[in-house]
Structure formats: C-alpha cells, structure tokens
C-alpha cells in the first residue's frame, strides 16, 4: 500500500511547467547523470536573469524542481546561481530523500549555468 507520492505543489508544477522550453541564442548548460537529463537556459540583461527556461527528462520531482527553480530565480541577480542549493526546494516540495541524487543533478546544472554566465560576463578573466 502506498499514499500519494507527490505533494499538491509538485502536481501543479508538473501539470503546468510554464518555464519548459528553450531560448534561442541564450546561454545554457546541459547535464546528464543519475538517469536525468536537464538543460537550463538564461537570457541575461543588466546582471539579472530576465528569462529562464528548462528542458528535462526525468521523474515528476525532477520536472517540478526545475520548474520551481526557473519560477523562483527569474529576475534575480546572476550571482545567485553560483550559490544555488536544491535543499530548500526539496523540502518545500516534499521530495523523497531517495531522490536526492537525481535532484542534485539540477543543482549541478544551475551552478554550471552560473559559471557559463560568469565567464560570458567577464571574457578577459
């Protein structure tokens, strides 16, 4: 016997992932690990992430966390990418601890995107 493995919020994010898609010409990071494929793309202006999009192949929690990240971080400073941790999102979405490995792939992808954005902003560094 098992209860509902998904919180109401996960169901909402999975059902309507408003940030799913790609951004032509934007900076992007793609990772594949732990049975998860994730691609994050960002349009940057004035040091802020104007638009964030994701593409994901994974379980509903992966898609929900990716959607929640994009929704939360649009409009924030690009510097926040390098400090991103999935732990708060995992807690708020009640992601089962058994899925930590695959959710951490999203954290790695966000930080990878952060590095790409930083390098693009400071090409001489």
């Amino acid at each position, binding site marked *: 016997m*098992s209860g509902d*493995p*998904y919180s109401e919020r996960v*169901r909402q994010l*999975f059902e309507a*992932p408003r940030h*799913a*898609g790609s951004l032509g010409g934007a900076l992007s990071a*793609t*990772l*594949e690990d732990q*049975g998860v*494929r*994730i*691609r994050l793309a960002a349009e940057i202006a004035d040091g802020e992430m104007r638009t964030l999009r*994701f*593409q*994901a*192949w*994974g*379980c*509903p929690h992966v*898609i929900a966390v990716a959607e929640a990240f994009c929704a939360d971080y649009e409009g924030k400073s690009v510097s926040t990418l390098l400090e991103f941790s999935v732990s708060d999102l995992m807690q708020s979405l009640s992601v*089962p601890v*058994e*899925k930590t490995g695959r959710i951490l792939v999203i954290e790695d992808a966000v930080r990878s995107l952060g590095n790409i954005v930083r390098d693009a902003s400071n090409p001489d560094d």
Partner: protein
Amino acid sequence: MIERAALVYLDYAASTPVDSRVAKAMTALMTVDGNFANPSSTHAAGRRSVEHIAHAAGQLAALLNTDADRLIWTSGATESDNLAILGGAHFRQERGRHLITMRTEHKAVVDPFNVLEKQGFEVTWLDPETDGVLDIAKLEAALRQDTQLVSIMHVNNETGVVQDIEQIGTVCRARDVLLHVDAAQSVGKLPIDLEALPVDLMSMTAHKVYGPKGIGALYIADRPGVHVDPLLFGGGQQQRLRPGTLPVQQIVAFGMTAEIARSRMSDDLEHLRAMHNRFWSGIRDLPGVLVNGCIETGFPGILNVSIEDIEGESLLLALEPLCVATGSACNSQIQEPSYVLRALGRSDALAQSAIRFSFGRPTRIEHVDFAIDRYRSAIEKLRRIAPERVQ
C-alpha cells in the same frame, strides 16, 4: 485531489468491481435474516450454510468442468499459490527436491520458491522467449529424475501472455511431475476444462472476475500422488488442508461470479478484443512504441506497452486521471524496472516506461478513446520538454 467521478479505470487486471447482483446476494447473507451461521455448526442454520457453500462449489466446478470436491477455498490466489507450491513440494519431497518455474511468474509464486530454495530445494528458473512464451523444449530439458513440481502461470498478469498449459501439462504428466498453474488472470475469462487439461493444481481468485476480495480457491486433481501438505492448522475444515471457518458470503459470491462468467464468457472475450484492438489501433503509430508480450496470441484484456525515451514515472503521472499500472514495481519512492519485462529482454529504460492497460466488462469505447488521447498527449508533452541527449 482527483474527484472520484473523473477517474477512468483501466486496471482490471489488478482488480474488478463486484457485480451488483453478487454484492446484493453477499450482503443479504451476512445479516440476521441471511445465512451467517458457521457452516461447521451442526444445527439447522449451520446446515443451511453448508448448502450454500455446496451450491457455490458446484457453480465454480461447472465453470472449470471438474468435481466440486476438488476445490479448496482459500483467501485468494496468493494463498492458493503458497498452498500449492509449498504444500506440493513438501508432500513430494521424499521423492525429490527439484522444482521448476519461470522468471516471469507473479510474486505469489516467486516468493514461495525462494522460501523453498532456502529450505534446500533446488529450483530451475526458466526464461521465456522474447514474446513471453515458454519454449517447451526448455522445460523438457530442465526436467530431471528428481523433479517433483512445475509451476507455470496461465495468463501473465503484467503482459497478458498466455502459456500453453495443455502442452506443458502433457510433458509434466509423462514424467509424473506435478503441474501447478496460477490461473488468477484466466479463471472466468478464458475457457478452462480441468477434465481435459493435464493440470494437477490450479490457483484462482474471485476479485479478478467481478467477485469480492478475500476469497479464492485451489483445485487439486483426483490423481495418485497429487496432494499438498497444509500450511495452516487449527481445525478440521476442508479435509484438514485449509482449516478455518468458511466465509459463507464470500464463497457464495465466488460461486455466483463463476456462474455469471460461464454464461457470458464469449461475449466478454469479444468485448475485450474490441477494446484492446481499438486502443492498440489508436497508439500503434507513435514513434518508439512497443508491445510487451504478443499482440496476436495474448489475452485481450491486457495490453502492456513500452515507449522509447520516455521516463516511466512521469508518464504515469501525466496519464492521470487514467488508472493504469506501471511496469515498475514500486520500491519505496524509487521505481524499479519490472523483473517480468527484464526477463523478456527489455532494457531497464524500456521496462521502466511500460504501462499496462487492462480492460474489463465496464470498459466503454469512450474510456478507450480517452486513454488513447491521454497517452498520446502525455508522450507529446514529455518529448516536448525533454532535451536532446548529451553527446
């Protein structure tokens, strides 16, 4: 929360609703004006319960073309499987301790064999062909002088693959080896003639055929050397093979479901074929879709499909409010690929994307069309949001 009314149920291989006539008869028996008396009691009310049970046994026996006294009532197919396999192996262990089964059996068969292996029995686990069917030559090659029991299911619960139990039974009978058949998915759905079939033990349950949960039966053939040791002790009921107060209302319900199934089996099969064919026609053009099992020879009540490059857990959620079964066995919060589909040679990814659609008497064309639409849109959505593979 999904509203009850919005659910579209296509999981009839897991369980079926109780036929309303059966539910009414059951309820009537349980109350003070019914026949609630213990059938072991010798008073008039008890004797009346015995008559009800005898009538129900006759109804089930008629469905299977056997004698009513060959049927032992149990709590369901799991108990029947355990009684047949553990009881049969123990009864015959003086003659030998080698047993044979398949890797695609239900857990109710697999686990008793695992127990017997721990008890020192030797088990040969046969692999199916890629279509799920057992190659009889493999069975013949696996039989030994000390083989005492073979257990092969009739209709596979995940894939709908139908095994040729007549041929399997003929091979076993020629070597005086007991054949147990888990027929949980086939009794009341496919014709079974136990007078003609060389089957020694057969497990069945009511709730897969529009009866209540909690009642099943084990058929034990009337043939020398065919017997089982009991698993339960505590009373003399049912020739001491399965003691315990008999649940009159459950047994009466099983008998009624058997009679109803017998009267409409060909209509049911025709209906299932129509639903099955309509659904398959509606999804077969999707790129990467694969049938697990055999579309032509499988039981039409079950269609198990995998699809390339789709994550199974997300697919299952995207299919809601369809009630269907995943090919995965849920292990905690992580879904593991089905061992049945792995045995058919499917990769972990394909096994994990498998969905079992199973149809029943209440299934209507609208349900099937809804399922087609839902499956196609779920696949389209998940492919749309998936990135290209990293090179």
